[in-house]
């Protein structure tokens, strides 16, 4: 068993959180509230020291100090940011709540501009460009013909079909979200193929999610069994 007080603390809190798997209980609730409180305090201190102090208090303090010594600095413009930040809190006063829309509009506008450019340039166009591919990748047919053995032929066959499958999946999935035409007859069958591709993609996402959750559970087990109890795991 560990002799470290913090390991004991972490182990007890881990067990408290895991007790929810049996059923909701006061021990779980206590650990949950403790976590929320500690996390809030941590983030508040981080943001105060990392954002407010270096970006506002220090430069504005230096700027105000400079006014008394006759040295003007442009850092005083940050007072404007402080005022805009304070205006966000006017939502708490119904009479002046409309003023909170100005800084909110500025935030939404700035982030939209940044996100749209990034998305259009780095995501949208690049992915479209990458989708403009030949139905059969050059060289894959020859590789398939030259492959020997079951595994090699299987891999070569998959390579040969890869672009076709990608295009089929892309077009059928896009068509599934095209609602201006009723999905009946041939178009219904295309949309159905799109659903299948979507299902496979959701299945892959679910599999990855399971892997992530099992990894988290494993790490807690390793902590409890090895770090806390002191058992030797391989």
């Amino acid at each position: 068993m560990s002799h470290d007080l913090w390991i004991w603390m972490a182990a007890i809190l881990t067990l408290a959180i895991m007790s929810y798997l049996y059923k909701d209980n006061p021990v779980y609730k206590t650990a949950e509230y403790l976590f929320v409180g500690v996390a809030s305090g941590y983030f508040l201190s981080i943001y105060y020291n990392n954002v407010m102090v270096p970006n506002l208090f220090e430069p504005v303090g230096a700027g105000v100090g400079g006014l008394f010594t006759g040295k003007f600095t442009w850092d005083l413009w940050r007072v404007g940011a402080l005022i805009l930040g304070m205006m966000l809190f006017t939502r708490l006063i119904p009479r002046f709540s409309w003023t909170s829309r100005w800084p909110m509009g500025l935030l939404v506008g700035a982030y939209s501009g940044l996100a749209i450019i990034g998305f259009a340039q780095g995501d949208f166009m690049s992915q479209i460009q990458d989708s403009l591919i030949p139905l059969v990748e050059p060289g894959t047919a020859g590789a398939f013909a030259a492959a020997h053995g079951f595994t090699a032929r299987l891999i070569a066959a998959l390579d040969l079909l890869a672009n076709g499958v990608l295009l089929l999946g892309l077009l059928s999935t896009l068509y599934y979200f095209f609602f201006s035409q009723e999905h009946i007859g041939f178009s219904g069958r295309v949309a159905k193929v799109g659903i299948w591709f979507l299902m496979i993609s959701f299945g892959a996402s679910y599999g990855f999610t399971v892997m992530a959750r099992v990894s988290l559970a494993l790490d807690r087990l390793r902590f409890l069994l090895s770090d806390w109890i002191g058992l030797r795991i391989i």
Partner: protein
Amino acid sequence: MAGSEPILERLEHADRRWIFLIMLVAITVPLFLRVDLPIRVSPEVKGFYAALEALEPGDIVYFAADYDPGSKPELDPMIKAALDHLCRKDVRIIAATLWPAGPPLLEAALDSIAMGRYHKTYGTDFVNLGFKEGKENVMVQLGKSFRAVYPNDYYGTPVGELPLLAAKNAAGGWAVDTFRDVKLLVNISAGYPGTKEWVQQVRTRYDIPIVSGCTAVSAPEDYAYIRSNQLSGLLGGLSGAAEYEKMIGVPGWGTVGMSAQSLGHVTIVVLILIGNVLYFLNRRRRKEAA
């Protein structure tokens, strides 16, 4: 009455806590009994390895460790493996994070690998710039000037006093100040902001190659960037970490955890199959009874 329910019906509605117990046993046993399952290295992991292997001694890498304790079990193995690989190649590292809870984790990994295992010198071989709020804004600004975004490192030292960032070039400017001076961006990502944002904001804008290690949850989304060559390599979740550990020949928690992980997956698959079989059997039985 539950007691009069047929056994198949009772099994279908079994208490979910039995499933938790079965999963607990399934992932605990491989931690004590050696179960060597083969680890096949995927092309994405080979790409990650190749990108780091292509670096020359003295090259500079921007190491963006965007994660927090919630994803430490998945991402710590890949951070340690990547740092091991970079230190072995004598590459200089500029490390930073855009996640507020990231700096202590990054510091621990750098202390353990760069200083502990490879005896690298802080300030010369690697620096830890710590956390900066601003998400995509920070990414874009880093392309213009590292020191404008991070005037001080994680410990409060002005970056001008760190030899790695204080060096001047022949023209008298800073030798290391933007992504132009960096050979590769290694991103370890737990979500937002992370790989997707680095690709969107930095990859095309500053034309810098990126490799990523991400949580399993975000891996499916990031695979699209491999195909379009926007990512040179990708480690997805604990399995990605295990494959990479195998490539660099340093088995760690990723490798150890994979046996338990695999047995856990097999258990889940079996449980899903049993659940479906029970559902269809009971549905047929109910139809026949009606």
